[in-house]
């Protein structure tokens, strides 16, 4: 088991065989954007950049952008503990160098596209990057948050199965713009003060024991580097108490305990104001699940439940009219986590398909949303058929054909979309068709479509990038074109492939 102690200048690797916690967790604050840092071995890192408040003149700026970024990181910290093996990093701009904190520049460094990072995200490990815009006017703060989730060098595609036929799908987008929010400066200061109070480092795991502030947010948003801890690492856990190793300037380290559960009132207050925090935290859970699944381990149900809760929380508090796509993506990620983590494959698929269909209705123009919904439905139908020894049953087959055809039309360069359509017809050829006769597909029509589609599918290259307009962004194309086959994962892990309706 490796535990990393990080200073700005030296990385020291210490092997700690006795500390076998699989829930290693790293946190770093006040990292300069010019030389960004992440916990490379963590399955997922959340990196929070300072909110851009440069629209405000220096005279009125109170460093609220940095203060908010620290609070976002602290809130994320308190809610992603359950995932284990995750890191949370907060970055800051050096004086006069705010441009270094651009999301594109920082992402380029920590994802290994450009030089300059102290440490990089490892291939197939995840990153949730958070940044935003802020405007301060008297006591009012106007905030808009953006988020990107990604795993280095690997696609977010996954594969559903209907018998021998595969259907490829992925979330609609990996970049989210949230609706703008309004909070008061007083709210922010109160939340910050509450976090400081609830994040005290104690010498022993006892609230009554002496302690000192962990972050010093309110005091140290703009203070010198001398008094602030550079970072800390979770060494272990004892119930709600987390044992940490805190690194101080000058290379000193200090052990201590923090009470992991922040005051529910504090969490409630900040998440009411900024519901996007829940989606950010859920995205960590999603990437954590994908990381485990990619390593052929079924994500735990607890991880699935925690992530699902966070997505649900965001959806309930969201401004649906002004962040429709964010809500759709939350439903998609929630569905994916459910199907990956559920002990019952069929139950997970059924719940996921419901989420995917709701997402499709929110963003009907998204070929990915169509593919997720139909892929999951066909997989579900095939599972039911396998357990009942009947033919796959498809409801409204002509409508599904239309939708998958639309998905292919809306993603013209996508071999996967065309392949989905072709495979659909192959499933439909032997399926039990349900619904009105007008909605059925005739066998000759199906055969004709298969004959025409197959050569076209062979002509296209897999994972072909979008064409005109504008040059495709090469930095977004994954190097590893490895897709997660859900059925293979479930079979390898012996997950129940049964119809729970038949369970007694």
């Amino acid at each position: 088991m490796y535990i990393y102690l990080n200073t700005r200048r030296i990385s020291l690797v210490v092997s700690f065989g006795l500390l076998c916690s699989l829930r290693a967790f790293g946190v770093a604050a006040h990292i300069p954007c010019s030389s960004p840092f992440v916990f490379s071995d963590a399955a997922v890192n959340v990196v929070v950049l300072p909110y851009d408040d440069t629209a405000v003149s220096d005279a009125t700026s109170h460093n609220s952008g940095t203060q908010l970024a620290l609070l976002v990181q602290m809130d994320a910290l308190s809610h992603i503990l359950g995932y284990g093996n995750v890191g949370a990093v907060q970055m800051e701009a050096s004086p006069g160098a705010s441009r270094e904190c651009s999301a594109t520049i920082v992402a380029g460094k920590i994802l290994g596209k450009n030089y300059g990072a102290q440490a990089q995200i490892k291939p197939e490990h995840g990153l949730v990057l958070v940044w935003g815009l802020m405007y301060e006017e008297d006591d009012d703060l106007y905030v808009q948050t953006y988020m990107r989730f990604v795993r280095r060098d690997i696609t977010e595609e996954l594969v559903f199965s209907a018998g021998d036929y595969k259907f490829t799908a992925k979330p609609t987008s990996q970049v989210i713009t949230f609706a703008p929010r309004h909070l008061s400066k007083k709210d922010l200061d109160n939340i910050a003060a509450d976090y400081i109070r609830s994040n005290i480092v104690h010498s022993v795991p006892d609230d009554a024991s002496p302690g000192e502030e962990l972050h010093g947010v309110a005091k140290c948003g703009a203070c010198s580097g001398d008094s602030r801890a550079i970072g800390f690492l979770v060494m272990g856990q004892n119930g709600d108490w987390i044992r940490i190793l805190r690194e101080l300037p000058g290379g000193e380290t200090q052990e201590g305990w923090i009470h992991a559960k922040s005051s529910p009132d504090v969490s409630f207050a900040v998440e009411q104001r900024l519901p996007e925090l829940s989606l950010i935290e859920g995205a960590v859970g999603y990437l954590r699940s994908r990381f485990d699944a990619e390593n052929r381990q079924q994500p735990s149900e607890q991880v699935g439940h925690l992530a699902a809760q966070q997505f649900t929380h965001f959806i309930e508090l969201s401004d649906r009219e002004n962040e429709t796509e964010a809500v759709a993506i939350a439903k998609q990620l929630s569905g994916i986590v459910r199907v990956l983590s559920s002990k019952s494959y069929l139950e997970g698929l059924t719940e996921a398909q419901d989420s995917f269909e709701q997402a499709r209705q929110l963003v009907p123009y998204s070929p990915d949303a169509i593919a997720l919904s139909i892929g999951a439905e066909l997989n579900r139908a095939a599972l039911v058929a396998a357990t009942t020894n009947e033919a796959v049953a498809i409801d409204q087959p002509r409508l599904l054909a239309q939708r998958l055809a639309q998905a292919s039309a809306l993603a013209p360069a996508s071999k996967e979309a065309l392949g989905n359509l072709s495979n659909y017809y192959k499933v439909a050829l032997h399926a039990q068709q349900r619904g009105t006769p007008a909605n059925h597909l005739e066998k000759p029509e199906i055969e004709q479509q298969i004959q025409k589609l197959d050569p076209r599918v062979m002509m296209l290259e897999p994972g072909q990038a979008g064409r005109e307009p504008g040059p495709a962004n090469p930095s977004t194309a994954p190097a590893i074109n490895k897709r997660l086959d859900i059925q293979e994962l479930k079979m390898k892990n012996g997950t129940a492939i049964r119809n729970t309706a038949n369970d007694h």
Partner: protein
Amino acid sequence: MRRTQIELLIGFLALTLTSTLSAAQLIDCTMSGSPDEYKIYVDDVRLPASNVPPRLRNRAQYLRTALFNELSNSWQDHASVKRCDRRFPNDAAEFDDTQVGSLNNLRVVLEVWTAIDDVAAADGEFGFVLVPARSMIPPAVFVVKDKSQGDVNLILKRNKELQAFAPIVLGTRLYQNHSYIDALQFLCQGHTQLQSTVLRQASGANSQLLRREKDLLVTLDAVIDDSYKQAKASGGPQFAAITPDPNGQYTCPK
């Protein structure tokens, strides 16, 4: 006579200077970009000549930055979003055929600006030039008037047209280039989002703008229908399953 001639000369010079200043505000964008890429211009904030309170100025800058970020985050893979400092129109009418033709040659598909017009009343506007749509719905310049007071986020939320205009112009440009199949994804997204914006607008609010946006939707319906027909005519088997609605028109997925 001599005095009259001098007055006339002064008047002529003043007029020339004013015209020069007005035209000069549509200067070349400071971020030019490469000739091949499609571009979206985000102009500078237009302010009255003097006495603009810092608060109003800051608000306008925040709105400009929010517009820039939204466009950049959503569309950077398809178009390069450029911050054009010190460039802005003094009047929407400046986007005449010559100006729009010039933008088209530069592969600019969308130009947006924010402005404060009246400091006392805090009257402001957002402007959008949908360059490729000019031949379809001339002049294809949309100006949304709004107050720059109150909750600044509500200003952003009230003016969601931006979300729809970007995919609309990208799709329209491709359609005009006869890339019908490539155009569909953008046209469908833009249509869905504009329809949602139109439905959400309170009746009576910005009625002229609402009417023009509805006209744009009607035009888009025809473009989308034609794109699907052209796509089907290309013989691609994926289009065989797509059928028209009961009115015989091809539409985007719902």
